């Protein structure tokens, strides 16, 4: 130890003038409250997931014992295989796999189409203040508040008239339209936060509507595109209402099929298969969140804070 510090009496050190970093007690009341609350919230949300995973790995005899919180004595992946490949919904007995691929074929084009259209909409509304832009924008926003149920039947008729009822294309169009208000709002607000002078400079530099969009705005907007993608993927993947209304048994998305598996009234309730099917269905949005969570937060923040 250094001699000069060694000579300092400890009582004096304790009463020393405040200096440097303020000491913090680890077990302060504040910390206990914060971490306690967080722990309770985490358990609250994780417990159901735990029950689902555990149940899906048990055989039916073990489930009948009724200890839902106990870990499986004998791990089996059979319920997962069954949920994916052989569970019956109506006439088809090929499990969730059919619904999964239907959902993929619905989600990918809907997400791409809606984001493309909405980003151009938002860009036009933010930067090219055309006549009636405000009215157009207001109508679009009001559209976001009309309950979907009101529009279900008229859209059935429209789709029938243009011959798309019951097809995946029809559902893609419906998803694209219903994604428009929120996505346009999102993009418009983001593009408004980009300094106007940049847009002016590009105009002086001879760039037109599409050049500015593609060369200036798009490269600056990756975060907001990720946000839009997450919103759309989870929204469309989790959609049940439009899926059940606008498609038929052959084209049901995964959510509808999951419902049919879980709610089938015939035979024994196979809780393990139900749990496995539910987890498989929820996996896609979950993976998207894990991959792009960081960009998601950045995009939300970038939209909120100007500059």
């Amino acid at each position: 130890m250094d001699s000069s510090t060694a000579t300092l009496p400890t009582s004096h050190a304790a009463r020393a003038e405040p200096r440097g970093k303020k000491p913090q007690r680890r077990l302060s009341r504040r910390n206990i409250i914060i971490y306690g609350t967080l722990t309770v919230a985490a358990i609250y949300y994780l417990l159901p997931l735990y029950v689902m995973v555990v149940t899906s790995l048990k055989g039916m005899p073990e489930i009948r014992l009724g200890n839902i919180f106990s870990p499986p004595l004998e791990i089996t992946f059979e319920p997962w295989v069954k949920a994916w490949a052989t569970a019956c919904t109506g006439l088809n007995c090929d499990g969730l796999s059919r619904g999964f691929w239907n959902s993929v074929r619905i989600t990918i084009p809907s997400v791409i189409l809606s984001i493309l259209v909405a980003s151009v909409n938002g860009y036009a509304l933010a930067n090219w203040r055309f006549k009636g832009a405000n009215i157009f924008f207001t109508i679009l926003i009001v559209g976001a508040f009309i309950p979907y149920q009101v529009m279900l039947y008229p859209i059935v008729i429209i789709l029938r008239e243009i011959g798309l009822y019951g097809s995946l294309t029809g559902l893609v169009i419906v998803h694209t339209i219903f994604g428009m208000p929120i996505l346009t709002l999102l993009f418009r607000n983001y593009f408004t936060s980009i300094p106007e002078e940049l847009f002016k400079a590009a105009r002086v530099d001879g760039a037109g509507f599409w050049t500015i969009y593609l060369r200036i705005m798009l490269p600056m907007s990756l975060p907001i595109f990720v946000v839009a993608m997450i919103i759309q993927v989870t929204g469309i993947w989790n959609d049940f209402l439009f899926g059940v209304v606008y498609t038929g048994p052959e084209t049901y998305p995964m959510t509808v099929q999951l419902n049919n598996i879980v709610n089938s009234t015939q035979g024994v309730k196979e809780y393990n298969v139900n749990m496995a099917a539910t987890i498989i269905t929820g996996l896609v949005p979950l993976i998207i969140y894990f991959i792009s969570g960081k960009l998601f937060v950045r995009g939300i923040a970038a939209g909120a804070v100007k500059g």
Partner: protein
Amino acid sequence: MASVSVKNLFLSFGEVKVLQDLNLEVGRGEFLVLLGSSGCGKSTLLNCIAGLLDISDGQIFISDKNVTWEEPKDRGIGMVFQSYALYPQMTVEGNLAFGLRNAGVGRAEIAKRIKQAAELLHIEPLLKRKPAQLSGGQRQRVAIGRALVRDVDVFLFDEPLSNLDAKLRAELRVEIKRLHQQLENTTMIYVTHDQIEALTLADRIAIMRGGAIQQLADPHTIYNRPINKYVAGFIGSPSINFLDGAVTRDGKPRFTSGEVVVDLERYPFEDGSSDGACAFGVRPEHIAFGDAAADSPFTAEVRVDVVEPMGSDTLVWSKLGGQDFRFRVDGQIPVSTGENVRIGFDPARASIFDKKTELRL
């Protein structure tokens, strides 16, 4: 020959009239500064000339071509913005090339012009960098370069130095002036609220207020013979002293304010007729002090109220005829509060404005 001319320009946003019947002629190769406080319409006018705002009425000519309905890119202008407005995802080179590529200029020509501009602005080592890796001064240089490569006749500057710190501002100011001298026949229109920038750079200054040009003249005239009270008060730092009083011109012309009487025999009246209430303006830096004051046509003794030393000079606040009166003395001369000092000035260098119309007499 006029390089830019604005004829009877009107601009309104809904009910708000921003510019009203504005006329402006800028000669070829001239450096014109639009000066005014914020909200006076100077940036708006520049945006109208650039074609970034649609005007309500009037005409705009650039190089004798009517460009009123032309797109910004077809007007033969380059523009530099306050926030630099560099494209963040492109390198400096990409920023410079963007406009040329849009115009379909050949690869070899683009490279040549970028090289020239980079040399002129000393940014060759920065060409491969992104704007985020540049300092403020470097960014503004690149922004100027972006206008330069376009090989245009008219440069528009929208407060280009306002985001820089004082030292850089002074450096870049000189560089802009040098650039203007190097580029013969290039017209520059420069918007600023900084009177020092205006006075140092301009061939002519247009002082704007409320969407109208108050005075359009060379810096010397603007400073020495302001056309109205607003211009006189706006230009000059510390600002001009105004003494309220009256002018009488029967017999010997004189200005009277309480006990203060100033002989106006040598004052060059512009308006021969009007008498009566007026504001007598004299700049703090035109006031002689101490021994030098004795030779002035007008002298008085005042008491020092407040002293503000500023290094090179000292600003002294006092009262003349019961009204606030500031004057500037050499920083080396000791002045203390409460002291009585002798001051003087030459009425020929003063500016007198009518009380009601605020116009120069």
